Protein backbone atom coordinates (compact mmCIF):
# COMPACT_ATOMS: atom_id res chain seq x y z
CA UNK A 1 0.00 0.00 0.00
CA UNK A 2 2.52 2.53 -1.15
CA UNK A 3 0.36 5.49 -1.83
CA UNK A 4 -2.67 5.18 0.39
CA UNK A 5 -3.68 8.68 1.44
CA UNK A 6 -6.37 7.56 3.84
CA UNK A 7 -6.38 4.22 5.62
CA UNK A 8 -9.40 3.07 7.55
CA UNK A 9 -8.56 0.21 9.89
CA UNK A 10 -11.16 -1.94 11.61
CA UNK A 11 -13.44 1.03 12.27
CA UNK A 12 -16.27 0.39 14.70
CA UNK A 13 -18.94 2.79 15.84
CA UNK A 14 -22.15 2.27 17.71
CA UNK A 15 -24.93 4.63 18.73
CA UNK A 16 -26.64 3.36 21.86
CA UNK A 17 -27.60 -0.18 20.96
CA UNK A 18 -27.11 0.23 17.24
CA UNK A 19 -23.81 -1.08 15.84
CA UNK A 20 -23.52 1.15 12.77
CA UNK A 21 -19.94 0.40 11.68
CA UNK A 22 -18.68 -3.03 12.56
CA UNK A 23 -15.10 -3.29 11.37
CA UNK A 24 -14.65 -1.24 8.22
CA UNK A 25 -11.32 -1.60 6.41
CA UNK A 26 -10.60 0.61 3.45
CA UNK A 27 -7.52 2.15 1.84
CA UNK A 28 -8.05 5.20 -0.30
CA UNK A 29 -5.29 5.97 -2.76
CA UNK A 30 -4.11 9.41 -3.71
CA UNK A 31 -6.05 10.72 -6.70
CA UNK A 32 -8.64 8.00 -6.50
CA UNK A 33 -12.34 8.64 -6.88
CA UNK A 34 -14.27 6.31 -4.62
CA UNK A 35 -18.00 6.03 -4.50
CA UNK A 36 -19.62 4.51 -1.43
CA UNK A 37 -23.01 2.94 -1.95
CA UNK A 38 -25.29 1.21 0.50
CA UNK A 39 -28.81 1.31 1.71
CA UNK A 40 -30.27 4.22 3.58
CA UNK A 41 -29.20 4.22 7.22
CA UNK A 42 -26.31 1.80 6.75
CA UNK A 43 -23.74 4.28 8.02
CA UNK A 44 -22.31 6.00 4.94
CA UNK A 45 -22.55 9.51 6.39
CA UNK A 46 -21.18 8.25 9.69
CA UNK A 47 -18.20 6.72 7.87
CA UNK A 48 -17.54 9.96 6.00
CA UNK A 49 -17.58 11.98 9.22
CA UNK A 50 -14.94 9.74 10.75
CA UNK A 51 -12.49 10.72 8.00
CA UNK A 52 -12.12 14.25 9.36
CA UNK A 53 -12.80 13.32 12.95
CA UNK A 54 -16.24 14.84 13.26
CA UNK A 55 -16.93 11.54 14.98
CA UNK A 56 -14.51 9.47 17.01
CA UNK A 57 -14.47 5.70 16.50
CA UNK A 58 -15.19 3.28 19.34
CA UNK A 59 -12.54 0.98 17.94
CA UNK A 60 -10.10 1.08 15.08
CA UNK A 61 -8.46 4.10 13.55
CA UNK A 62 -8.19 6.37 10.57
CA UNK A 63 -4.83 7.33 9.14
CA UNK A 64 -4.28 10.31 6.92
CA UNK A 65 -0.88 10.63 5.33
CA UNK A 66 0.24 7.75 7.57
CA UNK A 67 -0.74 9.59 10.74
CA UNK A 68 -3.43 8.45 13.13
CA UNK A 69 -5.84 11.38 13.08
CA UNK A 70 -6.96 10.74 16.65
CA UNK A 71 -3.44 11.59 17.80
CA UNK A 72 -3.23 14.97 16.13
CA UNK A 73 -3.07 18.08 18.29
CA UNK A 74 -5.93 20.53 17.85
CA UNK A 75 -3.62 22.75 15.75
CA UNK A 76 -2.69 19.80 13.51
CA UNK A 77 -6.30 18.72 13.25
CA UNK A 78 -7.26 22.15 11.96
CA UNK A 79 -4.41 22.02 9.43
CA UNK A 80 -5.54 18.58 8.33
CA UNK A 81 -9.17 19.61 7.96
CA UNK A 82 -8.12 22.52 5.78
CA UNK A 83 -6.77 20.00 3.29
CA UNK A 84 -10.27 18.52 3.06
CA UNK A 85 -13.50 19.84 1.66
CA UNK A 86 -16.77 18.34 2.77
CA UNK A 87 -20.21 18.57 1.28
CA UNK A 88 -22.75 17.60 3.92
CA UNK A 89 -25.84 15.60 3.07
CA UNK A 90 -27.97 18.44 4.46
CA UNK A 91 -25.60 21.05 2.92
CA UNK A 92 -25.26 22.49 6.46
CA UNK A 93 -25.01 26.10 5.32
CA UNK A 94 -24.66 28.63 8.11
CA UNK A 95 -28.06 30.24 8.07
CA UNK A 96 -26.88 33.47 9.66
CA UNK A 97 -24.66 34.12 6.63
CA UNK A 98 -25.25 34.93 2.99
CA UNK A 99 -24.29 32.56 0.18
CA UNK A 100 -21.07 34.48 -0.49
CA UNK A 101 -20.14 34.54 3.16
CA UNK A 102 -20.77 30.81 3.43
CA UNK A 103 -18.55 29.99 0.48
CA UNK A 104 -15.81 32.36 1.60
CA UNK A 105 -15.95 31.51 5.30
CA UNK A 106 -13.10 29.01 5.39
CA UNK A 107 -10.88 31.32 3.36
CA UNK A 108 -11.68 34.30 5.54
CA UNK A 109 -11.08 32.49 8.81
CA UNK A 110 -7.79 30.96 7.68
CA UNK A 111 -6.62 34.57 7.09
CA UNK A 112 -4.37 33.70 4.18
CA UNK A 113 -6.20 35.71 1.55
CA UNK A 114 -7.12 39.33 1.04
CA UNK A 115 -10.74 40.34 0.83
CA UNK A 116 -10.39 40.95 -2.90
CA UNK A 117 -8.95 37.48 -3.48
CA UNK A 118 -11.74 35.89 -1.47
CA UNK A 119 -14.38 37.73 -3.48
CA UNK A 120 -12.82 36.52 -6.69
CA UNK A 121 -12.50 32.89 -5.54
CA UNK A 122 -16.07 32.87 -4.24
CA UNK A 123 -17.44 34.18 -7.54
CA UNK A 124 -15.41 31.59 -9.45
CA UNK A 125 -16.55 28.64 -7.30
CA UNK A 126 -20.18 29.73 -7.45
CA UNK A 127 -19.91 29.83 -11.20
CA UNK A 128 -18.41 26.34 -11.26
CA UNK A 129 -21.53 24.96 -9.57
CA UNK A 130 -23.82 26.93 -11.88
CA UNK A 131 -24.90 29.57 -9.43
CA UNK A 132 -24.48 33.20 -10.31
CA UNK A 133 -26.33 36.18 -8.97
CA UNK A 134 -27.44 34.57 -5.72
CA UNK A 135 -24.40 35.58 -3.68
CA UNK A 136 -26.28 38.09 -1.57
CA UNK A 137 -29.14 35.75 -0.66
CA UNK A 138 -29.40 34.15 2.74
CA UNK A 139 -29.30 30.38 2.72
CA UNK A 140 -32.88 30.20 4.02
CA UNK A 141 -34.03 31.79 0.75
CA UNK A 142 -32.57 29.02 -1.43
CA UNK A 143 -34.13 25.90 -2.85
CA UNK A 144 -32.86 22.51 -1.69
CA UNK A 145 -30.85 21.95 -4.87
CA UNK A 146 -29.35 25.42 -4.66
CA UNK A 147 -28.30 24.81 -1.07
CA UNK A 148 -26.57 21.62 -2.14
CA UNK A 149 -24.63 23.46 -4.79
CA UNK A 150 -23.66 26.28 -2.42
CA UNK A 151 -22.45 23.55 -0.06
CA UNK A 152 -20.41 22.13 -2.91
CA UNK A 153 -18.95 25.54 -3.76
CA UNK A 154 -18.02 25.94 -0.10
CA UNK A 155 -16.40 22.50 -0.02
CA UNK A 156 -14.15 23.30 -3.00
CA UNK A 157 -13.48 26.92 -1.99
CA UNK A 158 -10.05 26.35 -0.51
CA UNK A 159 -9.01 24.01 -3.34
CA UNK A 160 -8.68 20.98 -1.07
CA UNK A 161 -6.68 17.86 -1.77
CA UNK A 162 -9.46 15.58 -0.64
CA UNK A 163 -13.16 16.04 -1.21
CA UNK A 164 -15.87 14.25 0.68
CA UNK A 165 -19.25 14.44 -0.98
CA UNK A 166 -22.32 13.23 0.87
CA UNK A 167 -24.90 12.72 -1.85
CA UNK A 168 -23.80 15.54 -4.16
CA UNK A 169 -26.62 15.09 -6.65
CA UNK A 170 -29.68 14.28 -4.57
CA UNK A 171 -32.32 16.94 -4.95
CA UNK A 172 -30.98 18.16 -8.27
CA UNK A 173 -32.71 17.92 -11.63
CA UNK A 174 -31.05 15.43 -14.02
CA UNK A 175 -29.27 18.13 -15.99
CA UNK A 176 -27.80 19.87 -12.94
CA UNK A 177 -26.91 16.47 -11.51
CA UNK A 178 -24.98 15.65 -14.64
CA UNK A 179 -23.24 19.00 -14.51
CA UNK A 180 -22.16 18.34 -10.92
CA UNK A 181 -20.91 14.88 -11.94
CA UNK A 182 -18.86 16.51 -14.68
CA UNK A 183 -17.45 18.93 -12.14
CA UNK A 184 -16.46 16.10 -9.80
CA UNK A 185 -14.79 14.20 -12.63
CA UNK A 186 -12.96 17.33 -13.71
CA UNK A 187 -11.68 18.07 -10.22
CA UNK A 188 -10.36 14.54 -10.06
CA UNK A 189 -8.69 14.44 -13.44
CA UNK A 190 -7.42 18.00 -13.74
CA UNK A 191 -6.46 18.78 -10.18
CA UNK A 192 -5.71 15.23 -9.03
CA UNK A 193 -8.10 15.61 -6.11
CA UNK A 194 -8.82 12.48 -4.08
CA UNK A 195 -12.52 12.06 -3.57
CA UNK A 196 -14.94 9.99 -1.59
CA UNK A 197 -18.55 10.33 -2.62
CA UNK A 198 -21.63 8.81 -1.10
CA UNK A 199 -24.49 8.42 -3.52
CA UNK A 200 -27.67 6.52 -4.23
CA UNK A 201 -27.66 7.66 -7.82
CA UNK A 202 -26.13 4.74 -9.74
CA UNK A 203 -25.86 6.69 -12.97
CA UNK A 204 -23.75 9.27 -11.22
CA UNK A 205 -21.81 6.58 -9.35
CA UNK A 206 -20.74 4.92 -12.61
CA UNK A 207 -19.81 8.25 -14.07
CA UNK A 208 -17.60 9.58 -11.30
CA UNK A 209 -16.14 6.46 -9.71
CA UNK A 210 -12.99 4.62 -10.54
CA UNK A 211 -13.78 2.40 -7.60
CA UNK A 212 -17.09 1.52 -6.01
CA UNK A 213 -17.40 0.30 -2.45
CA UNK A 214 -20.56 -1.09 -0.95
CA UNK A 215 -21.22 -0.75 2.76
CA UNK A 216 -23.54 -3.38 4.16
CA UNK A 217 -24.11 -4.63 7.69
CA UNK A 218 -21.41 -2.32 9.05
CA UNK A 219 -18.71 -3.80 6.81
CA UNK A 220 -17.41 -3.44 3.30
CA UNK A 221 -19.51 -5.89 1.31
CA UNK A 222 -17.96 -5.22 -2.05
CA UNK A 223 -14.98 -3.30 -3.42
CA UNK A 224 -14.22 -3.06 -7.12
CA UNK A 225 -14.14 -1.05 -10.32
CA UNK A 226 -17.40 0.05 -11.98
CA UNK A 227 -16.93 -2.71 -14.56
CA UNK A 228 -16.55 -5.28 -11.79
CA UNK A 229 -19.69 -3.95 -10.12
CA UNK A 230 -21.65 -4.43 -13.33
CA UNK A 231 -20.31 -7.95 -13.77
CA UNK A 232 -20.50 -9.12 -10.17
CA UNK A 233 -22.58 -12.06 -9.07
CA UNK A 234 -22.72 -10.73 -5.49
CA UNK A 235 -26.45 -10.75 -4.90
CA UNK A 236 -26.45 -7.88 -2.43
CA UNK A 237 -24.71 -5.60 -4.91
CA UNK A 238 -26.86 -6.82 -7.78
CA UNK A 239 -30.02 -6.12 -5.88
CA UNK A 240 -28.80 -2.68 -4.90
CA UNK A 241 -27.76 -1.50 -8.34
CA UNK A 242 -30.85 -2.87 -9.98
CA UNK A 243 -32.97 -1.24 -7.29
CA UNK A 244 -35.09 -4.31 -6.71
CA UNK A 245 -37.13 -4.89 -3.58
CA UNK A 246 -36.60 -8.62 -3.94
CA UNK A 247 -33.30 -10.09 -2.82
CA UNK A 248 -31.01 -10.69 0.14
CA UNK A 249 -31.32 -7.11 1.46
CA UNK A 250 -34.28 -7.11 3.78
CA UNK A 251 -36.21 -3.97 4.57
Amino acid at each position, binding site marked *: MADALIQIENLKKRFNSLQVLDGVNLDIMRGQSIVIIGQSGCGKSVLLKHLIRLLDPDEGRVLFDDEDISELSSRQLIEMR*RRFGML*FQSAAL*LDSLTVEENVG*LGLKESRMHTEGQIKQIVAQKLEMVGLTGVGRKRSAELSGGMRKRVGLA*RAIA*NSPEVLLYDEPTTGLDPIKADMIDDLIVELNSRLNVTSVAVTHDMKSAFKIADRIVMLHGGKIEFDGSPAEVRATDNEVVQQFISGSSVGPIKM
Partner: protein
Amino acid sequence: MELGFYALGRHGIRIITKVGGIFVLWGRFIASLRHIHHSPGLISEQLYVLGVKSLPLIIIISIFVGAVSAWQAAYQFKFIGAPLRYLGQAVGKAVVMELAPVLSALVIAGRVGAGITAELGSMKVTEQIDALESMGINPVRYLVMPRMIACLFMVPLLVLFANFIAIVGGLVVSVIGVEVSSETFLFGFRDSFKLADLINGLVKAGMFGFIIGLIGCYEGFNAEGGAQGVGRATTTSVVISSVLILVFNFIFAVILFRM
Protein backbone atom coordinates in the same frame (compact mmCIF):
# COMPACT_ATOMS: atom_id res chain seq x y z
CA MET B 1 -34.76 -1.35 44.49
CA GLU B 2 -31.82 -2.43 42.40
CA LEU B 3 -33.42 -0.62 39.50
CA GLY B 4 -33.62 2.45 41.69
CA PHE B 5 -29.91 2.36 42.41
CA TYR B 6 -29.23 1.80 38.76
CA ALA B 7 -31.28 4.84 37.80
CA LEU B 8 -29.60 6.86 40.54
CA GLY B 9 -26.21 5.81 39.23
CA ARG B 10 -27.06 6.76 35.70
CA HIS B 11 -28.37 10.09 36.87
CA GLY B 12 -25.20 10.68 38.83
CA ILE B 13 -23.06 9.89 35.81
CA ARG B 14 -25.10 12.31 33.71
CA ILE B 15 -24.59 15.12 36.19
CA ILE B 16 -20.87 14.44 36.48
CA THR B 17 -20.55 14.35 32.68
CA LYS B 18 -22.36 17.66 32.46
CA VAL B 19 -20.28 19.39 35.11
CA GLY B 20 -17.12 18.03 33.50
CA GLY B 21 -18.28 19.18 30.08
CA ILE B 22 -18.98 22.67 31.38
CA PHE B 23 -15.46 22.93 32.83
CA VAL B 24 -13.96 21.65 29.58
CA LEU B 25 -15.86 24.30 27.63
CA TRP B 26 -14.61 26.90 30.11
CA GLY B 27 -11.04 25.77 29.44
CA ARG B 28 -11.54 25.85 25.69
CA PHE B 29 -13.00 29.34 26.00
CA ILE B 30 -9.91 30.52 27.90
CA ALA B 31 -7.68 28.89 25.27
CA SER B 32 -9.60 30.60 22.47
CA LEU B 33 -8.88 34.01 23.98
CA ARG B 34 -5.50 33.86 22.25
CA HIS B 35 -7.33 34.55 19.02
CA ILE B 36 -9.45 37.36 20.39
CA HIS B 37 -7.80 39.95 18.14
CA HIS B 38 -8.89 37.99 15.05
CA SER B 39 -12.54 38.22 15.88
CA PRO B 40 -13.46 41.90 16.41
CA GLY B 41 -16.37 41.63 13.96
CA LEU B 42 -17.87 38.59 15.66
CA ILE B 43 -17.49 40.14 19.11
CA SER B 44 -18.98 43.50 18.23
CA GLU B 45 -21.93 41.74 16.60
CA GLN B 46 -22.61 39.85 19.83
CA LEU B 47 -22.11 42.96 21.97
CA TYR B 48 -24.88 44.48 19.91
CA VAL B 49 -27.20 41.48 19.72
CA LEU B 50 -26.86 40.40 23.35
CA GLY B 51 -26.23 43.76 25.00
CA VAL B 52 -27.69 46.73 23.20
CA LYS B 53 -30.82 44.85 22.19
CA SER B 54 -31.50 43.87 25.81
CA LEU B 55 -31.58 47.50 26.89
CA PRO B 56 -35.31 48.17 26.36
CA LEU B 57 -36.22 45.12 28.43
CA ILE B 58 -33.82 46.13 31.20
CA ILE B 59 -35.27 49.64 31.26
CA ILE B 60 -38.82 48.37 31.65
CA ILE B 61 -38.07 45.86 34.38
CA SER B 62 -35.86 48.32 36.26
CA ILE B 63 -38.54 50.98 36.44
CA PHE B 64 -40.88 48.51 38.08
CA VAL B 65 -38.21 46.99 40.30
CA GLY B 66 -37.41 50.47 41.66
CA ALA B 67 -41.08 51.35 41.93
CA VAL B 68 -42.10 48.27 43.86
CA SER B 69 -39.13 48.42 46.19
CA ALA B 70 -40.02 52.02 47.12
CA TRP B 71 -43.65 51.08 47.60
CA GLN B 72 -42.86 48.01 49.69
CA ALA B 73 -40.26 49.82 51.79
CA ALA B 74 -42.71 52.62 52.53
CA TYR B 75 -45.34 50.07 53.51
CA GLN B 76 -42.94 48.25 55.84
CA PHE B 77 -41.74 51.56 57.32
CA LYS B 78 -45.30 52.55 58.14
CA PHE B 79 -45.93 49.15 59.65
CA ILE B 80 -42.95 49.29 62.00
CA GLY B 81 -43.22 53.04 62.46
CA ALA B 82 -39.88 53.95 60.89
CA PRO B 83 -39.52 57.49 59.56
CA LEU B 84 -40.05 57.76 55.80
CA ARG B 85 -37.04 59.97 55.30
CA TYR B 86 -34.95 56.80 55.29
CA LEU B 87 -36.74 55.58 52.17
CA GLY B 88 -33.91 56.66 49.88
CA GLN B 89 -31.39 54.69 51.94
CA ALA B 90 -33.47 51.52 51.90
CA VAL B 91 -34.33 51.61 48.21
CA GLY B 92 -30.79 52.56 47.22
CA LYS B 93 -29.15 49.75 49.16
CA ALA B 94 -31.60 47.12 48.02
CA VAL B 95 -31.39 48.12 44.37
CA VAL B 96 -27.64 48.51 44.08
CA MET B 97 -26.66 45.48 46.12
CA GLU B 98 -29.27 42.90 45.24
CA LEU B 99 -32.26 43.81 43.13
CA ALA B 100 -30.64 45.29 40.05
CA PRO B 101 -27.93 42.65 39.64
CA VAL B 102 -30.07 39.62 40.45
CA LEU B 103 -33.30 40.52 38.72
CA SER B 104 -31.50 41.84 35.63
CA ALA B 105 -29.42 38.68 35.47
CA LEU B 106 -32.51 36.48 35.71
CA VAL B 107 -34.23 38.41 32.95
CA ILE B 108 -31.08 38.31 30.82
CA ALA B 109 -30.82 34.55 31.40
CA GLY B 110 -34.31 34.32 29.96
CA ARG B 111 -33.60 36.51 26.99
CA VAL B 112 -29.93 36.12 26.13
CA GLY B 113 -29.18 32.69 27.61
CA ALA B 114 -32.19 31.17 25.92
CA GLY B 115 -31.29 32.90 22.67
CA ILE B 116 -27.73 31.58 22.73
CA THR B 117 -28.85 28.01 23.44
CA ALA B 118 -31.57 28.08 20.81
CA GLU B 119 -29.22 29.43 18.17
CA LEU B 120 -26.26 27.19 18.90
CA GLY B 121 -28.56 24.22 19.49
CA SER B 122 -30.21 24.54 16.12
CA MET B 123 -26.78 24.96 14.52
CA LYS B 124 -25.73 21.77 16.25
CA VAL B 125 -28.68 19.66 15.14
CA THR B 126 -28.48 20.91 11.55
CA GLU B 127 -24.75 20.06 11.35
CA GLN B 128 -23.68 23.69 11.00
CA ILE B 129 -21.20 23.23 13.82
CA ASP B 130 -19.81 20.14 12.10
CA ALA B 131 -19.54 22.24 8.96
CA LEU B 132 -17.47 24.85 10.80
CA GLU B 133 -15.16 22.15 12.08
CA SER B 134 -14.87 20.63 8.62
CA MET B 135 -13.55 23.97 7.39
CA GLY B 136 -10.89 24.00 10.08
CA ILE B 137 -12.72 26.64 12.11
CA ASN B 138 -12.73 26.17 15.86
CA PRO B 139 -16.39 26.54 16.85
CA VAL B 140 -15.42 27.61 20.35
CA ARG B 141 -13.50 30.56 18.97
CA TYR B 142 -16.08 31.32 16.30
CA LEU B 143 -19.26 30.93 18.37
CA VAL B 144 -18.56 30.64 22.09
CA MET B 145 -15.85 33.23 22.62
CA PRO B 146 -17.74 36.22 21.15
CA ARG B 147 -20.87 35.33 23.12
CA MET B 148 -18.99 34.83 26.38
CA ILE B 149 -17.15 38.13 25.97
CA ALA B 150 -20.42 39.88 25.20
CA CYS B 151 -22.06 38.42 28.30
CA LEU B 152 -19.07 39.24 30.52
CA PHE B 153 -19.08 42.89 29.46
CA MET B 154 -22.67 43.61 28.73
CA VAL B 155 -24.32 42.18 31.84
CA PRO B 156 -22.44 44.55 34.20
CA LEU B 157 -23.12 47.42 31.82
CA LEU B 158 -26.82 46.58 31.73
CA VAL B 159 -26.87 46.31 35.51
CA LEU B 160 -25.28 49.76 35.75
CA PHE B 161 -28.17 51.06 33.65
CA ALA B 162 -30.63 49.06 35.71
CA ASN B 163 -29.32 50.70 38.90
CA PHE B 164 -29.87 54.13 37.52
CA ILE B 165 -33.32 53.45 36.09
CA ALA B 166 -34.50 51.60 39.21
CA ILE B 167 -33.49 54.53 41.44
CA VAL B 168 -35.45 56.82 39.16
CA GLY B 169 -38.42 54.43 39.38
CA GLY B 170 -38.16 54.44 43.18
CA LEU B 171 -37.90 58.19 43.23
CA VAL B 172 -41.03 58.64 41.14
CA VAL B 173 -43.04 56.34 43.39
CA SER B 174 -41.76 58.08 46.53
CA VAL B 175 -42.70 61.49 45.25
CA ILE B 176 -46.07 60.60 43.77
CA GLY B 177 -47.24 57.67 45.85
CA VAL B 178 -45.64 58.07 49.27
CA GLU B 179 -45.19 61.81 49.44
CA VAL B 180 -41.51 61.81 50.25
CA SER B 181 -39.89 64.76 48.49
CA SER B 182 -37.28 64.09 45.85
CA GLU B 183 -34.71 66.03 47.96
CA THR B 184 -35.30 63.76 50.94
CA PHE B 185 -35.21 60.63 48.80
CA LEU B 186 -32.02 61.59 46.99
CA PHE B 187 -30.37 62.79 50.18
CA GLY B 188 -31.05 59.43 51.75
CA PHE B 189 -29.75 57.63 48.70
CA ARG B 190 -26.55 59.67 48.56
CA ASP B 191 -26.07 59.36 52.28
CA SER B 192 -26.07 55.60 52.21
CA PHE B 193 -24.43 55.13 48.83
CA LYS B 194 -21.06 53.38 48.92
CA LEU B 195 -18.94 52.94 45.83
CA ALA B 196 -17.94 49.51 47.13
CA ASP B 197 -21.58 48.37 47.01
CA LEU B 198 -21.90 49.43 43.42
CA ILE B 199 -18.67 47.72 42.46
CA ASN B 200 -19.65 44.52 44.27
CA GLY B 201 -22.95 44.57 42.41
CA LEU B 202 -21.14 44.94 39.09
CA VAL B 203 -18.64 42.20 39.89
CA LYS B 204 -21.57 39.96 40.71
CA ALA B 205 -23.16 40.95 37.43
CA GLY B 206 -20.00 39.92 35.59
CA MET B 207 -20.13 36.57 37.33
CA PHE B 208 -23.78 36.17 36.35
CA GLY B 209 -22.94 37.09 32.76
CA PHE B 210 -20.27 34.41 32.76
CA ILE B 211 -22.76 31.84 34.03
CA ILE B 212 -25.37 32.82 31.44
CA GLY B 213 -22.88 32.66 28.57
CA LEU B 214 -21.19 29.44 29.63
CA ILE B 215 -24.37 27.50 30.37
CA GLY B 216 -26.08 28.91 27.28
CA CYS B 217 -23.24 27.80 25.02
CA TYR B 218 -22.80 24.43 26.72
CA GLU B 219 -26.45 23.49 26.42
CA GLY B 220 -26.55 24.65 22.80
CA PHE B 221 -23.46 22.65 21.86
CA ASN B 222 -24.91 19.54 23.45
CA ALA B 223 -28.41 19.77 22.03
CA GLU B 224 -29.52 16.72 20.13
CA GLY B 225 -32.70 15.34 18.69
CA GLY B 226 -34.11 17.95 16.35
CA ALA B 227 -36.37 20.86 17.20
CA GLN B 228 -37.67 19.14 20.31
CA GLY B 229 -34.13 18.65 21.59
CA VAL B 230 -33.32 22.30 20.99
CA GLY B 231 -36.42 23.29 22.95
CA ARG B 232 -35.40 21.03 25.80
CA ALA B 233 -31.86 22.40 25.80
CA THR B 234 -33.17 25.96 25.88
CA THR B 235 -35.38 25.28 28.87
CA THR B 236 -32.53 23.52 30.67
CA SER B 237 -30.20 26.41 29.93
CA VAL B 238 -32.53 29.00 31.49
CA VAL B 239 -33.31 26.81 34.50
CA ILE B 240 -29.68 25.97 35.26
CA SER B 241 -28.40 29.50 34.84
CA SER B 242 -31.22 30.95 36.96
CA VAL B 243 -30.56 28.51 39.77
CA LEU B 244 -26.80 29.10 39.59
CA ILE B 245 -27.34 32.86 39.63
CA LEU B 246 -29.34 32.64 42.85
CA VAL B 247 -26.98 30.14 44.48
CA PHE B 248 -23.86 32.13 43.66
CA ASN B 249 -25.57 35.32 44.71
CA PHE B 250 -26.13 33.80 48.14
CA ILE B 251 -22.56 32.54 48.38
CA PHE B 252 -21.32 35.99 47.39
CA ALA B 253 -23.45 37.62 50.09
CA VAL B 254 -22.19 35.25 52.77
CA ILE B 255 -18.58 35.92 51.82
CA LEU B 256 -19.02 39.66 51.56
CA PHE B 257 -21.31 40.51 54.42
CA ARG B 258 -19.93 38.68 57.42
CA MET B 259 -21.97 39.30 60.53
